[in-house]
């Protein structure tokens, strides 16, 4: 290893850091340490003059290691890596110390904060000393795309990609396309026909030569990595192997099982129906009780299974507006029928939805608020003198009264859950599932389409409950992302991955079992573990589990991390002694 010549740069971040950390004192102190050729501080290291400072120092002083103490590496690690690369240095010979989020923003004592910042800088210096040069690599992208789920989301994405001239494999577990939207009569808030919408999409998909649809098919296993995935399908007649560069998961939703909510009487009382069952009545144009009578009173119970700790804590987002849609449809079909809504909060956030709510409110529907926390309306069979089929009891929150509601048909606005296949698909595609059972996105705000696995995108209600416009937006966004990657043609892969020292691998399979990304396989010939560097995220789980130390994480080797810890402790030992003194 060449003799390290390290440049250290401490950022003020305007006053963000400098008001709490004595950056000048640290700069001076660091400058006296061995191997430090340059030690500077500057108002904004991320600015162009700041970066130029680093570049000119590298050229002038022949620096071969750089440390920047500034904000979180999440924000500017790539900025500085690029600057260093421009100066002709390998970008991995760089380390960042976070003295803003971890120091100046969270501490109030200048002296202690300065000590802590110093220890973080020294830790970074110790680590960067052991950094090695890593070479970047790219892989080609297969332009075909796999889409799992033939609902409105999957079909929309498929059409966008196929119409750009690329191959799409569309996997549908059912025997027909359309998903949940095909079971719906009209859409809110403009009351346009869902059937027309979905039928024209199905037509387009069926007639597009670039789209190959596989019905009654489930995905068991997907191998490969971004740009080069593959899967084997078991079809009725023969097996089929598909190769593709990207995939979209659009597995959709499953309505909550209404029988699991016993207060609500589904299955016990004949005229209690779910929203989707009521959609069938609407499609047939036949709103009747089980006994074949026209209902005089219809009760719509909102939030069944949603926003309730016992069932699903989240909001299913579409049920409020769907319930209003029913209100409108019932009002026009049965002008004399009384309509009651038992709701717990009305959420009308979509485009045109608040207007829809106000209009519906004027069409003689009664809105009754129940307290989701302790009192779901309970339903019982009506007596002879009640002149209706069902009586609902609830505490009405806004009036403070215990009330009973007469009903001939009760519609349950059942919550949306992720489809039951989610776990299987998540395992096959290597994506995570959030606490509510939906696919986990890469970033909830900045990247809700991608997942932590490159080349795997999620769209529609498999990510979270959504209405049609939101699902379609996500579908088209995912398609756009994939078309971008196809047009680039190549993808750069991260180098901070695990690597196996084949000489000392004991073939114990420990690493294969612990890898959360299924990135490690076993080479039966050589009897050693093999890391697929494209899939590996460099999380380091394998290297900490490996009993022989044969597997290590590049850029985070044991040596690098241990020296980082040593650097950290060198100062913090002093610091803790001082703090103890103060406490005494």
């Amino acid at each position, binding site marked *: 290893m060449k003799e390290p010549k390290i440049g250290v740069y401490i950022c003020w971040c305007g006053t963000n850091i400098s008001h709490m950390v004595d950056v000048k004192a640290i700069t001076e102190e660091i400058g006296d340490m061995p191997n430090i050729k340059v030690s500077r501080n500057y108002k904004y290291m991320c600015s162009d003059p700041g970066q130029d400072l680093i570049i000119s120092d590298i050229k002038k002083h022949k620096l071969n290691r750089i440390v920047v103490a500034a904000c979180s590496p999440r924000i500017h690690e790539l900025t500085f890596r690029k600057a260093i690369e421009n100066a002709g240095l390998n970008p991995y010979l760089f380390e960042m110390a976070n003295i803003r989020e971890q120091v100046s923003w969270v501490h109030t004592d200048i002296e202690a904060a300065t000590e802590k910042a110093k220890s973080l800088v020294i830790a970074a210096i110790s680590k960067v000393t052991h950094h090695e040069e890593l070479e970047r690599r790219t892989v080609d992208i297969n332009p075909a795309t796999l889409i799992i789920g033939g609902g409105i989301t999957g079909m929309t994405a498929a059409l966008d990609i196929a119409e750009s001239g690329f191959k799409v494999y569309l996997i549908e577990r059912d025997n027909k396309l359309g998903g949940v939207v095909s079971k719906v009569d009209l859409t809110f808030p403009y009351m346009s026909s869902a059937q027309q919408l979905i039928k024209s999409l199905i037509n387009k998909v069926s007639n597009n030569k670039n789209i190959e649809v596989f019905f009654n098919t489930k995905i068991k296993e997907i191998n490969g990595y971004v740009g080069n995935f593959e899967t084997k399908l078991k079809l009725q007649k023969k097996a089929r192997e598909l190769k593709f560069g990207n995939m979209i998961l659009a597995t959709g939703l499953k309505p909550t099982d209404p029988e699991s909510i016993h207060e609500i009487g589904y299955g016990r009382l004949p005229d209690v129906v779910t929203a989707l069952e009521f959609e069938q009545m609407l499609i047939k144009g036949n709103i009747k009780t089980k006994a074949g009578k026209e209902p005089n*009173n219809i009760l719509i119970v909102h939030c069944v299974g949603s926003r309730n700790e016992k069932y699903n804590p989240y909001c299913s987002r579409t049920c409020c507006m769907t319930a209003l849609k029913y209100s409108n449809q019932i009002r026009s079909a049965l002008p004399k029928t*009384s*309509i*009651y809504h038992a709701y717990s909060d009305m959420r009308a956030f979509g485009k045109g939805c608040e207007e829809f709510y*106000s209009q519906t*409110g*004027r069409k*003689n*529907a*009664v*809105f*009754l608020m129940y307290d989701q926390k302790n009192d779901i309306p309970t339903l019982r069979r009506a007596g002879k003198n009640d002149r209706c089929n069902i009586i609902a*009891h609830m505490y*009405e929150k*806004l*009036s*403070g*009264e*215990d*009330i*009973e*509601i*007469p009903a001939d048909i009760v519609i349950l606005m059942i919550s949306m859950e992720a489809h039951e296949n989610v776990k299987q698909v998540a395992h096959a595609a290597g994506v995570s599932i959030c606490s509510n059972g939906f696919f986990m996105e890469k970033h909830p705000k900045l990247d809700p389409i991608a997942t932590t696995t490159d080349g795997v995108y999620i769209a529609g209600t498999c990510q979270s409950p959504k209405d049609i416009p939101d699902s379609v937006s996500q579908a088209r966004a995912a398609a756009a992302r994939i078309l971008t990657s196809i047009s680039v043609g190549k993808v750069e892969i991260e180098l901070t991955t695990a690597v196996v020292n084949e000489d000392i691998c004991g073939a114990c399979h420990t690493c294969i079992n612990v890898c959360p990304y299924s990135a490690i396989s076993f080479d039966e010939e050589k009897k050693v573990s093999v890391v697929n560097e494209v899939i590996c995220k460099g999380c380091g789980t394998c290297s900490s589990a490996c009993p022989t130390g044969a597997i290590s994480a590049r850029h985070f080797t044991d040596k690098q991390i241990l020296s980082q810890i040593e650097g950290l402790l060198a100062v913090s030992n002093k610091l803790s002694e001082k703090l103890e003194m103060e406490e005494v």
Partner: protein
Amino acid sequence: MSYRVNSEFKSDLKKFGIAEQWNECFHCGNCTAVCPLTENGFLFPRQGIRVMQMGLKEKLATYVDPWLCYYCGECSETCPREANPAELMMTLRRYLTSVYDWTGLSKKIYTSKWWEFGSIIIIALLIIVGFLIYLPLKSGADAMVNQSGSVMINSLVEGISAGQFVRIIEIGDWTMAIIVAALLISNILNMFYKVILSDNAVKVPFGTYFTEFWRLIYNFATQAKFSKCDDRNYWVGHLLLMTGYSIMFALVVIALPLFQIEEIVPWYNWQRLLGYYATFGILFFLIQVTIGRIKKQDTKLKFSHPSDWLFIIMLALTTITGILVHIFRLNGMVEATYYLYIAHLAVLVPMIVIEVPFSKWSHLAYRPFAVYFSRLKKAAVKKIEYQRELAPAI
């Protein structure tokens, strides 16, 4: 006990009111917060809107709060949804009048113009026809002018003496007063049954009926609760009307032989002074509300139900005919005095017989009783809370 909801109730209520924006209410509670009269236990008008939206008929019958509202209109001015809570309270008062009235006539009169105008016209015609047939103008009545030149009003009818005439009118007055009182009292008993007795949640301590009774008298005489509304002009006008009308009622029913006398006494005599005060009080109020209802700028006068206009018109006609009778008498115009006297009765009688027990004027009884009942309820609730405090903790 739980109350049954009823989505049809709103359309039943529509006929009792003018504005129908109550569904706009999303229960922010601004109206309750801004109301100068709302207090713990009586959180109107928001609660009333809710009960109305849900159509809890049985609950509404026990609901005394609309009578505690004097329609200052601040809630409607503050309402961010323009749901018009003040007009709802007005509408509920009309509705409750029909609920308390056991004859069912009130509902018919409030919800049908045919019934409303028809009943008044029929009574007016009966008076006119009855008068012309049984109490016709005497031939040679032109001579019935006394020395000071004014008409001797009790001596204009054929075949009966002045004393007999006054007696006939007095008997008529008392008959009318007793019928109206009987109807009102039975309606108040009905209100008492609905508001206090049938509300299972309320058990009024017996002594409270007596200790709170003074409020009934006090509120009737002073309308103290009304005076707590921020705009007191309207309270002044209303107090003038109430005292003026009460005095006039006492003069023509209780003191008729002393009031309706053949001689026109000098202006400083008590009959004339009281009469002038009453006329002034009624006219003042009439002008105030007529201008207000035409201008429609003041929130409380913006929405006029047919029953509101009818009330003003009847009262104005009664007053104007009364004034004309007085003027014609002073100027010795015998025939004009006789016919205007008939016209005066033909407006006055239907106004009292229809308006007092069945329509807008019934509030003269319901309002003070509502204040009384609300105090009873509050005392009962206090007692329950007190007992709860005493109950041992489990």
